[in-house]
């Protein structure tokens, strides 16, 4: 990407990280359109490049060359800055994700807390975008979106809390290493179902894509954003989906570990992590192609009266088991 061409020095690990993320996000948009097309018995994008493989770049270039309309009533600085906030927060979480054994940009011991802090801040981009646009659709969309994001933050934090209580560590590397024996999806299957529902809602995906309910709110909080600011929101959305897929892999599917404790190399480990994350992303698209959208009050009721109590009950259950059998991680 553009970051790689500054000077003639080797691209640093950070640059490769950001460039790689943006590249993979671009191809994810293509993958989603292709998979959706297959599920609906269409062909999907197939003109640009071989089998439409260059479609995301064509789309990106088109958005780059479009006119960026800034509404006259908007607060222009906040209006233009909010997509940048959203995208940088969506990419910042990758700093603590381990791609292979010992290969994270920053292997800090409080990686889980860092990631949760970053994902909580994501609501600011949505809120600022919707408020600054000064349009009724954007306003209502951002209200809904922020209510949804903060609500589903709670079950999300609860699930991570339970995993931390089992593994006894806030570092992603140690959480993955803990799963050498058995992937956590097997002992925590009910919890992983809660987690799957929560990440769908947290990334504003169908069936919880209320902020972008086309019939009532057009495009939600980003209805006034066009051209490059819109592209940034689009990238941020898919970036957070990719982040959540990878997080699911790390927390439940053994991260970069091969099944049955098979030996591996760093390159193979990274490939395994990518494969597992892609499978979770396929699940995202599958759900979108299958389920209809829920109503907004149903969305909030599911979170507050179903997922959150389930989370608390499971937390007390897990803690009781750990204390009763004296198997608390030291």
């Amino acid at each position, binding site marked *: 990407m553009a970051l790689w061409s500054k000077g003639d020095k080797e691209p640093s690990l950070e640059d490769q990280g950001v460039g790689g993320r943006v590249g993979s996000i671009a191809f994810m948009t293509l993958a989603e359109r292709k998979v959706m097309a297959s599920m609906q018995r269409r062909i999907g994008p197939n003109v640009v490049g071989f089998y439409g493989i260059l479609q995301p770049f064509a789309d990106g270039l088109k958005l*780059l*060359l*479009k*006119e*960026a*309309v*800034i*509404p*006259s*009533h*908007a607060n222009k600085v906040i209006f233009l800055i909010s997509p940048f906030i959203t995208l940088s927060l969506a990419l910042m979480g990758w700093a603590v994700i381990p791609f292979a054994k010992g290969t994270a940009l920053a292997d800090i011991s409080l990686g889980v*807390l860092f990631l949760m802090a970053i994902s*909580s801040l994501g609501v600011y981009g949505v809120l600022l975008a919707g*408020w600054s*646009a*000064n*349009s*009724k*659709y*954007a*306003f*209502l969309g951002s*209200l*809904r979106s*922020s*209510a949804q994001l*903060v*609500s589903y*933050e*709670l079950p999300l*934090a*609860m699930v991570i*809390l339970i995993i*931390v*209580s089992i593994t*006894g*560590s*806030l570092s992603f590397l140690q959480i993955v290493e803990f799963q050498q024996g058995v992937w956590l999806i097997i002992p925590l299957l009910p919890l992983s179902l809660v987690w799957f529902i929560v990440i769908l809602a947290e990334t504003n995906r169908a069936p919880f894509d209320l902020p972008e309910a086309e019939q009532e709110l*057009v495009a939600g909080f980003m*209805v*006034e954003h066009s*051209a*490059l600011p819109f592209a940034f929101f689009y990238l941020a959305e898919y970036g957070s989906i990719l982040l959540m897929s990878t997080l699911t892999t790390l927390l439940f599917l053994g991260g970069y570990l091969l099944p049955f404790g098979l030996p591996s190399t760093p390159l193979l480990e990274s490939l395994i992590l990518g494969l597992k994350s892609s499978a979770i992303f396929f699940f995202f698209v599958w759900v979108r192609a299958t389920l209809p959208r829920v109503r*907004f*009050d149903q969305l*909030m*009721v599911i979170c*507050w*009266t179903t997922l*959150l109590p389930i989370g*608390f009950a499971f*937390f*007390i259950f897990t*803690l*009781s088991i*750990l*204390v009763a059998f004296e198997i*608390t*991680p*030291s």
Partner: protein
Amino acid sequence: MLVATNNPDNAKMAPYECGMPPASDARHKFQISFFLVAILFLVFDCEILFLYPLVVSLYHISSFGFWISMIFILLLTIGFVYELGKGALDYAKDSSSSKNSPKY
């Protein structure tokens, strides 16, 4: 954005409202439920954050710490049940009981 065309006019710059001229400012009143959700979120997020130090030090505080945390969760559960009983999350009831309140 630098290479893109830029020729704005009044209609293009107007807030988008499906082709209608905007009737009023967009920053109008909204339903109180959104505010309640935010306040409830504050309480529960703080609670979950307080539980994080507990679970990573569970080995050292053993069953005494466990029971203290159970009391902590019990108190918050009572508050949660009270909130639900008061209908803090009852969107449908709110919008039908007072007809003039703005819808979400």
